[in-house]
């Protein structure tokens, strides 16, 4: 609970984590419950084991006693056969006096004692021939200490009775030892178990409390915070790793949003100011309705540009959060590329460039036609805008598409000045315009948008040196192209082969196998 000191003063944590909450928490933890269950189960097993041992030992001892008694009886029977009851009595008298002797008693038919070392017996014992377990008192010992014994009683000829038995004190002692051992071990199991459970639960709880603390500070706005990894690779570590990955992703999205709002603030304020200035100027200086009209037209153009930027920004944001549902379909990329090149061909001609296409037929990808079309349009538009070659260069923009292994490669290449290596990753960011291009119309969103589209389609967008010029290469996972036969249109099923799932959890809302639109 070292963190108490840390967190107690921190205003960010909504609820402090004082020690008094620890104990009630402990009883509710999974670790504690598990340990309690183990404790009971272990105690039960220990008890059973000890009980089994005790029972076996008792049986063994009893068997020993019985066999001793049997042997004595055989000996005594022999004596009686040889010398009658008198000899038997003599032998018993002698044996009774030996140290550690068995129990002997010979009585008359009415129960008067003739010989033996047994003083007191429960009444009626001698009337039941055979083996019994009784309490008795030995004549030689201190009379006040009755013992337990297993005895066997015989009816001798003439109605005399003979009792032979052995004390079971040893067995009783063993029983006591075992009972005591059982008690101690159960106590030990309980104490150790409690301790272990407390320890384990505390350890786990501590880590979870740490996670909760981190989570709370993250919720309070510290997006840099990450859960601690203990390095043991256990379940909590794995959980922490996954949560950290999630936090990373959230952080990226947040940073993206932050960047968008920063950029929006910066790059939309400029045209907004222009728009406002234009309107003010018109109010102040316009003399004729025609001048006013021209100013208003200009304002509308400016507003349209703003809307355009705004739409592009929103679209990029949506692409980055991976929210296009139900709109992935099997597409004939060749058709899209050729169509798009055809759309831009007159524009290229107007710009003094020739647009050359080199498209393999029947290229298939899984995607959204609008988005891919838009991305490609942006790339071609860029190439026409910035791909003017230097004096004597090739005024050619090449759009190529082909399949290599499981990937469709789509490239737009120009022979313009290109993009210096160090700027290549930067230009994919929003609103980045290289100094060389500042004079041209545009907002610096085209490449970001294309990159967003490609990422959403599980593809990659690379900027390469076309020596000279820029080549933008898009790789997309290839699938079988859709049938061109219009009769085959209608609900299509998506071929899963060669169409890898979209990346990461961000596109979980775009499972492959969507219905065609």
């Amino acid at each position: 609970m070292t963190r108490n000191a840390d967190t107690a003063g921190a205003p960010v944590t909504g609820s402090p984590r004082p020690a008094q909450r620890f104990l009630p928490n402990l009883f509710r933890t999974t670790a504690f419950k598990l340990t309690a269950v183990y404790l009971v189960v272990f105690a039960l097993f220990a008890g059973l084991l000890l009980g089994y041992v005790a029972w076996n030992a008792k049986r063994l001892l009893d068997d020993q006693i019985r066999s001793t008694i049997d042997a004595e009886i055989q000996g005594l029977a022999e004596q009686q056969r040889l010398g009658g009851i008198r000899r038997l009595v003599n032998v018993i008298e002698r044996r009774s006096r030996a140290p550690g002797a068995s129990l002997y008693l010979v009585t008359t038919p009415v129960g008067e004692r003739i010989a033996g070392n047994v003083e007191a017996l429960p009444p009626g014992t001698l009337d039941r021939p055979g083996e019994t377990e009784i309490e008795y008192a030995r004549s030689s010992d201190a009379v006040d200490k009755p013992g337990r014994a297993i005895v066997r009683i015989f009816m001798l000829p003439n109605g005399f009775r003979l009792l032979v038995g052995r004390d079971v004190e040893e067995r009783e002692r063993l029983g006591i030892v075992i009972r005591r051992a059982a008690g101690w071990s159960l106590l030990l199991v309980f104490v150790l178990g409690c301790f272990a459970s407390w320890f384990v639960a505390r350890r786990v709880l501590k880590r979870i409390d740490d996670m909760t603390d981190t989570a709370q500070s993250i919720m309070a706005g510290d997006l840099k915070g990450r859960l601690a990894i203990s390095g043991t690779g256990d379940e909590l570590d794995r959980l922490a790793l996954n949560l950290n990955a999630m936090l990373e992703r959230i952080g990226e999205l947040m940073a993206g949003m932050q960047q968008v709002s920063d950029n929006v603030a910066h790059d939309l304020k400029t045209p907004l100011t222009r728009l406002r200035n234009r309107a003010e100027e018109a109010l102040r200086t316009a003399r004729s309705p025609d001048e006013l009209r021209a100013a208003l037209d200009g304002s509308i153009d400016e507003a349209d540009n703003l809307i355009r930027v705004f739409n592009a920004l929103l679209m990029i944001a949506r692409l980055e959060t991976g929210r296009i549902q139900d709109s992935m379909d099997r597409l004939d990329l060749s058709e899209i590329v050729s169509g798009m090149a055809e759309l831009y061909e007159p524009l290229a001609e107007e710009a003094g460039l020739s647009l050359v296409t080199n498209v393999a037929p029947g290229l298939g990808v899984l995607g959204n036609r609008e988005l891919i079309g838009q991305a490609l349009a942006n790339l071609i538009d860029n190439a026409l805008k910035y791909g003017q070659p230097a004096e004597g260069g090739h005024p050619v923009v090449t759009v190529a598409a082909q399949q290599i292994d499981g990937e469709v490669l789509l490239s737009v290449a120009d022979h313009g000045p290109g993009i210096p290596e160090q700027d290549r990753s930067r230009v994919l960011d929003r609103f980045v315009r290289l100094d060389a291009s500042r004079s041209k119309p545009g907002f610096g969103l085209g490449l970001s948008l294309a990159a967003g589209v490609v990422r959403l389609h599980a593809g990659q967008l690379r900027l390469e040196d076309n020596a000279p010029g820029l080549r933008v290469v898009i790789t997309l996972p290839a699938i079988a192209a859709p049938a061109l036969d219009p009769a085959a249109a209608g609900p299509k099923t998506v071929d899963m082969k060669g169409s890898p799932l979209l990346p990461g959890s961000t596109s979980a809302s775009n499972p492959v196998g969507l219905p065609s639109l």
Partner: protein
Amino acid sequence: MRLLIVEDDAEAAAYLTKAFREAGHVADHAGDGLEGYAMAEGGGYDVLVVDRMLPRLDGLSLIRSLREQKDATPALILSALAQVDDRVKGLRAGGDDYLPKPYAFSELLARVEVLARRRGAPASEPTTYRVGDLDLDRLAHRVTRGGTEILLQPREFRLLEYLMKHAGQVVTRTMLLENVWDYHFDPQTNVIDVHVSRLRAKVDKGFEHPMIHTIRGAGYMVRDTQR
């Protein structure tokens, strides 16, 4: 043309109503989905302009309910949502066209007029279009002007076909991109203008009266100015 505007934003509705009336149309206004449904059900409208997000009954449900009643009045959906698949959802619900906010009124007007015209048009499209001395044969893929054949690329043919189909009506650039190229994004540049000027060079060059007219701030129109 009578049209019904279902829009909960009073200011936007007032602007639309005024603008449509100035364009010579009769425009009524409903402030929420249920009112809009009741008024549309009464019938008599040529086009419905329905905001997507409305109180009480949203725009898509309104159109879906009308379609279930076998009411096929053309409906244009206005939406502040611009998700990639919003258009598809809107059209699936029974909408005939879809325009994301913010929009230019000229764009909305052009689309509404096309929708209204479609309502009155015969079910099957004619095989030939004729505007003045310009003829287009859809089956033979032949275009003649004053009896002289004009050779067009396939896409130029489709461009002219679409313009002639809506002769006398304004056709916006986005409408051309949507209907001739089947894309719904913003091309960001004057790519459509270049195609139209190419077409114009083939159709109008050398003739006294141009057929393809640029409508400032709106789009293009094919019209015979001779008559």
